[in-house]
Structure formats: structure tokens, C-alpha cells
């Protein structure tokens, strides 16, 4: 599903450059639920951004679903993002002046899908996150957990191969966090491959595998016994 070999990335800071990723090797199979952990500055967000094609590696190979991701121009990257990836952000990043269903149908719009089909698909995914009744509400009329669920529905709408979540529970309280995690676990149970960046141990323990980063290298990569979020809800 996902194959990364010897990935390097450095950012220029003035005259010097900061070596953020120092040779990452990572392989993720379909159906995995992986937590990427690490303190701030460990390079976990950079790794996620490279996986998400929002950023490009300096060195190394990256295959997504056996497609080499290399030397993409902005247009190609946009099309790949649209086709392969679904993003879930810490701060939800819903478009404020669009209501829930419009937000969910946005990736479908960029896929060039017709209006009616878009509407149907978006409503279906909103239904999946349990927000069918909130379809016409603007993001500021929704609670944090609801917003994140809309964001998840949006990420799902394009039916991506890989879901990328950057601190999905970072802006939520514990109860809501567990609700979201329960939902993510459900998606994983249905077969979705999901990558979660987090620095919270309890969230990481709800995944099936934990990859620990430190100073740009993988310190530890272990499969764990998943803690089901449902027992806390």
C-alpha cells in the first residue's frame, strides 16, 4: 500500500539547513491503522506532509499503491491527492461559508463529478458519520466533534486509498476524542488504511501499530494490542 525507502528532508534556515528526516523506511499494508508518534520537532508532521504530497522529499523513494510519487508538478500532485488521499486536520479546516454537505462534496467537485451525484454521495457520507440532520448547518453552528466528523466525511467522500489524520483529536476534549477515535476504528474495521499523527499515548494505543519518531529517525516500530475506544464512550 505504502512504501517509503530512505526518505530525507531538510529545510533551509538562513544559511544552514535543518535536517528533519534522516532516512525513513516505512511500509504500510492495506487495512492498517498506524499511529505516528513523536515529540514536536521529531519530524512526524513533515513525514505526514510528504506522504500527503503536500511537501516533497529531498531524497528517497515513495510508492503509493505501487505508483511512484516523484517529481510531481502542482497539477499532478493535486490530482493524486484527490484520487488517493483523504485529509483530516487538527483544526478541521472546514470552509466557513459552506454548510456541512457542501464541505463534504468539495473533493467530489474537484473530481469533476456532477452536481446531483455529488449531493447524493456527500449525503451518504454525512449519514455515515451520523450528521444527516445537520447537512444544512454551517460549521460555526456545529460542535467540535461534529466539525471533525464532517471533516472525516469530507475525507471519505472521494473514497481515498489512504486516510491521513494530523492530530485529529488535538482540538477536542477527551470524551469527544474517544468518540472520534471510535469512529476511526470503525472505518478501519471496514478496511480503510489510516495514518494518524498524534502525541497522545491514549490515542496511539487505540491504533494497531505505533511508529515512534525521534530527531528524524524511526526509534521504534511495533504492533500493539488495540484498545477499543468504545469501552470509554
Amino acid at each position: 500500500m505504502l512504501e517509503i525507502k530512505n526518505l530525507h528532508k531538510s529545510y533551509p534556515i538562513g544559511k544552514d539547513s535543518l535536517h528533519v528526516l534522516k532516512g525513513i523506511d516505512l511500509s504500510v499494508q492495506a487495512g492498517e491503522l498506524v499511529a505516528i508518534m513523536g515529540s514536536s520537532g521529531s519530524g512526524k508532521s513533515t513525514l505526514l506532509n510528504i506522504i500527503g504530497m503536500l511537501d516533497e522529499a529531498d531524497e528517497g523513494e515513495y510508492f503509493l499503491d505501487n505508483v511512484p510519487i516523484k517529481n510531481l508538478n502542482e497539477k499532478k500532485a493535486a490530482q493524486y491527492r484527490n484520487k488517493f488521499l483523504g485529509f483530516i486536520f487538527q483544526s478541521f479546516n472546514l470552509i466557513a461559508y459552506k454548510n456541512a454537505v457542501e464541505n463534504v462534496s468539495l473533493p467530489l467537485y474537484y473530481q469533476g463529478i456532477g452536481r446531483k451525484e455529488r449531493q447524493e454521495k456527500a449525503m451518504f457520507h454525512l449519514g455515515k458519520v451520523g450528521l444527516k440532520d445537520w447537512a444544512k448547518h454551517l460549521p460555526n453552528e456545529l460542535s467540535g466533534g461534529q466539525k471533525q466528523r464532517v471533516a472525516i466525511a469530507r475525507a471519505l467522500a472521494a473514497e481515498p486509498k489512504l486516510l491521513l489524520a494530523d492530530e485529529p483529536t488535538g482540538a477536542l476534549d477527551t470524551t469527544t476524542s474517544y468518540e472520534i477515535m471510535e469512529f476511526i476504528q470503525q472505518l478501519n474495521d471496514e478496511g480503510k488504511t489510516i495514518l494518524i499523527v498524534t502525541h497522545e499515548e491514549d490515542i496511539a494505543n487505540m491504533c494497531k501499530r505505533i511508529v515512534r519518531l525521534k530527531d528524524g529517525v524511526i526509534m521504534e516500530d511495533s504492533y500493539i494490542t488495540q484498545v477499543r475506544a468504545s469501552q470509554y464512550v
Partner: protein
Amino acid sequence: MFRFLVDRDSWQEIYDSLRKNKFRTVVTMIGVWWGILLLICLLGAARGMENSFNRLFGDFATNSVFIWGQTTSKPFKGFQEGKRVRLTLQDAKAIEREVEGIEFVVPRNQNGAVVIKGFQSGNFNVNGDYPLLDKVQKKKLIHGRFINQNDINEKKKITIISEDAYKQLFEKDEDAIGQFIQINGINFKVAGIYEASMMGGPSSDLHIPFTTFQQIYNQGEDIGWMMITGKPEFDIKQIELDAKLLLKNLNKVHPKDKRAFGSFNLGKEFKKFTGFLAGMQFLTWFVGIATLIAGVFAIGNILLITVKERTKEIGVRRALGATPFEIKRQIVMEAVLLTLVAGLLGIISGGLILMAIDAAFGQGEDATLVNASVSIPIVWLALGILIVLGTLIGLIPAHKATSVKPIDALREE
């Protein structure tokens, strides 16, 4: 490529993002609205002035010069200075024959006369004229006809009278055609009545055939003055110089004598005024377009701020799969839509103002702005300019929007 123009979704996207901040949208549009309003009003006013000017000159052949004889200021070929110069029919024919670029030469005579009709009488100017006069100084006939060649050949005693003369000599609503009036004691039949125009050299009240005039005033071949009309492509100033030189030669006048012939060059005066009008129109366009450009820049400026505000939204859209082209297209279309709607509103309100101006100052005989209006092609042109400017100015914020990497855009707080 241009399918998006008819795609409801791309318009929905634009509508949504404009609706998001109504106040900003309205303020943005004011600049362009004002610019095009100004352009329309100025152009309309300039047109109104031109129209009133054209109405003033009416159907008068403006490429004309009047020449008459005066007294010499230099002795020449044995003649003392102070010799009286009289133009003759031969002079007129010679000019028509010899001078390049002549359209018509119209010899004219004028004299004062007492005119009597029944118990009414008055002093009027009587002109001896050829039918040709109607060509250079169109007579707007209310009734009857103008002088014709038959009148000239047979020296008929007919007269064409002005509306003013009619009012003085006849009862209200009285049919004057075919009635007789006495000019210097001779009976003339009224053949036509014309509406006096404001322009056209010395005022005239009654026209009689040239040959009849010669006979009753015993003029011989002498003429009072002549009207020379040049072909449109010839310079009337040159024609005036050529004609005067020829006249000096024919009448034995010193070539450098400046007093012997008087003249009034209508073409020259007319040119001065049309030049002034053209200058005003240029100024109008200049001011209008400059204001328009300032307005469009205001739109670009505000869109630039908007793009900055929307950096994160644009980042999200790109993360969801929007290509840079799609982002650019949307921003350019927003710019074009704003300029276009503002422009249309400007044209409409400008049109309303012109209608108000027309109602207030455009009516009546001595209106200063006649039919102040802007032609449809100019409206299209203005809209075309707006679309082009809107696109160009939209490219700046569009470029700015996509120059930020999506990752940086998303990080923006």
C-alpha cells in the same frame, strides 16, 4: 477549456465566496462603478455638446468662405489706392473654373427694401439668389418651394419669404402661397416660406431670383459677395488664398493688398470648434479610462487582501485536490464578475443620469446639451475593456494565491 463558463458549479463557488462578505464585495465594486459612471456621463455630455453644435450649424456647408469686395490699400497699375472693388459674375465663374477643389461658387446680392402687403409693411433685406444656395445653406421650407432655374431664366417675379417676414406681413394661418407682396413697389408672388436658421452669414428675409434682382436694382454683372464651398478633402484656407489671388489679378489689385477683399472663413472657425470638441472628447476618454483603471486596481488590491485572508481556505482546497489552475480560474472569474457587475451598474446609473440631464437641459430650441447619449458600440467597448482589465488585474491575486505552497497555506493561522 471554457466549459466552466456555463458550469453552474463554478458560478456557485464564486457566488458563495462573494456572498461570504457582502460589504467587502460592495466596497470593492464602488471603484469601478464610479469609473464607468463618470465615463458614461462625460461621454454623454460631450456628445450632447457636439449635437447642439451640429444643430446650430444645421445643414450649412461648413467648408465655406465668404468673399466680398472692399477698397484697395495700395496703388497698382495706375490706379490710386482707395479704389472701390466690386465683384462680378465673371469673377465667380473664373473662380469656379480656375481654383482647385471648388464644389460650388454662389454669387449673391442683397439690398434693403420696403415690403408692403395690404396695410402691412416693413423693411426687409432682399436677396438675389441662385437655386444653388439651397445646396450650401439648406433652406427648411415650411410651405412651397425654393427658387428654380426656370425662375432665373425667365426673371420671374416670385419670392421666398422667411417665417418672420410671413408673421409680419400676413394674418395668422393665412395661406401666403400665391399671394402678392410689393417689394419696392413691384408685385412679387410668394412661392415659399422657410424656417430661419441661426447660421448662414448675413441675415436674410426675402429671396428673389438672381436675375430678377439684377433687373430691378439695375445691378448689371455686379454681385454683393460670393460664397465659395470647397470639396471636403480640400483645405478651405488654401482655397481662400487661391481665390483671393485670382480676384486680385482679375480686378487689377496689388497682390499684397490686404484690404481689397474682405472675407469670412467659416471652415476655419468651424475647424477650431471641432478641434475643441475633439480635444474635449479625448479628455473625456482619458479621464474616464484613468478612473476606470483606478477602480479596477482597487478591485485587484482588495482581492489581494482577500486572498491573503483566504490563504488557509485555498490550502484546504488544494489539499482536497484543486489544481493551481482551478484556484487561479476562480479568483480571476471573481475579479471579472465584480468588474462586470460594477460596470453594468455604472452603465445603467450613468444612463439614468444622462436621461435626467436630457430631461433638464436637453429640451427646447436653445438647449445646451442636445440628446446627451452614449452609443451602444461604446458601451460594448467599455464592457470589453472592463473584462480585459478585470482578467489582467485578477491574475495578480490569482498568482499570489497559488504561489504559496499548500503546506504553508495550511500552517497559516
